[in-house]
């Protein structure tokens, strides 16, 4: 033990551990505690009075006869969030992989410049970027205007405040999180392997499928996770671009801490989400236990 405290490694790791314990584990424990408390009459919670209402309410509601019946409202909101996140992930992958691939094929100086371009959106606040999309997508906005000018009569684009606008906004927001990790794995790719594939008679498609894609898999996996999970927590985009017509999980949680003044339910929803994400990550890591990189 004494040896451990003297070791350099311990002291190097310690700040990170303390940081995670303090800024992640503690708040999570507090949330867990709040989720099993009784709600206060005027918001807040009754400290010390326990109740599992929050978790019961997620699946059931009381009907007129005070019986518990299945309530699908919240499940529907969860399903929508997972669906939109998956869709965003796929779109981001379809756009992000070719982009990353293209960048990785450039000369060193050009690569750095292009990567720098990818990071530019991070300079601006996400709220501002969503407002910019509102100006682009609205009827009579820039896109509508250009289409009409080019002779394509749109008669009003009618895309703002629809689910399409939400998925455009989400894909745009999370695209860099897909491009960067894929680029990172493609950049390390040994081009001699691709040449070898061609020498052995593979055509372009086959080389891509059998050599490049497997080698880029860790980056693709990282990108998918980095897009999918934050997307589940999207709050601003559905509110602004979706016109507030359909809730996603984050909006539902927000409303519990706001107008509904039901903190335990809000905290409980947060935990249901956390559990679902953990389970799907677990399933994912079991399935892809042997990532191709280890085979090399």
């Amino acid at each position: 033990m004494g040896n451990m405290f003297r070791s350099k490694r311990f002291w190097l790791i310690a700040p990170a551990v303390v940081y995670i314990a303090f800024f992640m584990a503690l708040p999570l424990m507090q949330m867990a505690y709040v989720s099993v408390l009784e709600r206060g009459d005027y918001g807040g919670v009754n400290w010390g009075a326990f109740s599992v209402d929050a978790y019961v309410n997620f699946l059931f509601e009381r009907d007129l006869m005070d019986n518990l019946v299945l309530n699908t409202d919240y499940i529907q909101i969860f399903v929508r969030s997972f669906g939109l996140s998956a869709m965003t992930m796929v779109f981001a992958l379809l756009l992000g992989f070719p982009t990353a691939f293209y960048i990785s094929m450039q000369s060193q100086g050009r690569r750095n410049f292009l990567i720098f371009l990818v990071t530019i959106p991070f300079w601006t606040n996400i709220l501002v970027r969503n407002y910019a999309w509102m100006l682009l997508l609205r009827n009579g906005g820039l896109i509508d205007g250009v289409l009409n000018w080019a002779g394509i009569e749109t008669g009003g684009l009618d895309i703002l405040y629809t689910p399409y606008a939400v998925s455009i906004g989400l894909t745009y927001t999370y695209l860099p999180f897909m491009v960067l990790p894929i680029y990172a794995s493609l950049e390390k790719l040994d081009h001699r392997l691709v040449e070898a594939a061609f020498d052995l008679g593979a055509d372009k498609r086959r080389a891509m499928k059998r050599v490049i894609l497997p080698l880029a898999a860790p980056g693709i996996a990282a990108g998918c996770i980095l897009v999918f999970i934050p997307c589940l927590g999207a709050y601003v985009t559905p509110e602004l671009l979706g016109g507030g017509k359909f809730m996603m999980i984050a909006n539902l949680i927000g409303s519990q801490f706001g107008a509904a003044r039901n903190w335990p339910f809000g905290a409980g929803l947060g935990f249901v989400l956390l559990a679902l994400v953990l389970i799907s990550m677990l399933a994912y890591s079991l399935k892809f236990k042997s990532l191709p990189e280890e085979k090399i």
Partner: protein
Amino acid sequence: MKFRSVILGASALALLSVGSAKADGELFFYNWSNYFPPELMEKFEKETGIKVTLDVYDSNETMLAKLQAGASGYDIAVASDYMVDVMIKEGLATEIDAKDFENFKNVAKPHDTMKYDPDRKYSATYLWGTTGFTYDASATDAEMERSWKEFFEPREEFRGKIGALNDEVEMFNAASYYAGVEKCTEDPAEAQKVLDVLLKQKPYIAVYSSEGTIDRMSAREVSMHMQWNGAAHRTKETIPEAVFVYPKEGLTYWSDHFVVPTGAPNLENAKTFLNWMMKPENAAEASNYAGYMNSIKGSGAFMDPSMNDDPAVNMPEEYADLLIPGQNCSVKARDLRNRVWTKLKS
């Protein structure tokens, strides 16, 4: 040269001491965004030497959640009627006895008292207004009814061109007036009626949003919007044809109040501010900026004539019976309301 640096040093010292003297006189003000004129704040700082720091929120509930979560350090928060009730009951409000203030004599009836704080122990009056809807009269040839029907079951020309407030309380209340149901109802069958009204309206809604209602109307992105009357007044600056409707089924009348949160670090400065805001010229300036009426006698003389001439702000006497005050609903009623809202958006 040397002399000059001595002078510079001395004035720097003087500035420093002024700075610290000022630091004693501070006021932390927590308010809705875009709801207090910056010029008026500067005027207050100049007249009293108290430095004001502003923080803003978007809804009563955000403010409540922050105070309940233990945020301290605010000297003044602005709360709507029903929220004053919550704050008093939750022990989040400090007794200030506004009645004893020198300028309280300026407060017009009935604002010298209030349903949830009859003796004005915890609250001082700020602005008040109504929640109705505005439409652009140039968008229709029809003779519009003075009813929520036009909003909830819109005519052909308004369909898809309607903005609603993204506010669970305001929307539920308006729909309950139209459905003829008590807004704090605890009866699921009645809540269902409210939900039916909202669901039927939803396909015609362009957007649910409480922010930028004025801009959306002005840009003609929508031609009808549920609005607070002050926003309706400001909409008319760009769209003179805009009409603010006082529906015959009734509309919510709300009032906002200054409350001093428990543990306010600068209680005396807060009282100074509240008393100062009861002067007619200061109250008038707040009204001119926000577009809502204040409750201070004699402020009319300092108000923009456009405010007095606008029926959206200066409500015609015959509509007085339509006003329904805000109400702090029970837990059961709030749960029903939230379930209606969630079902609407699930």
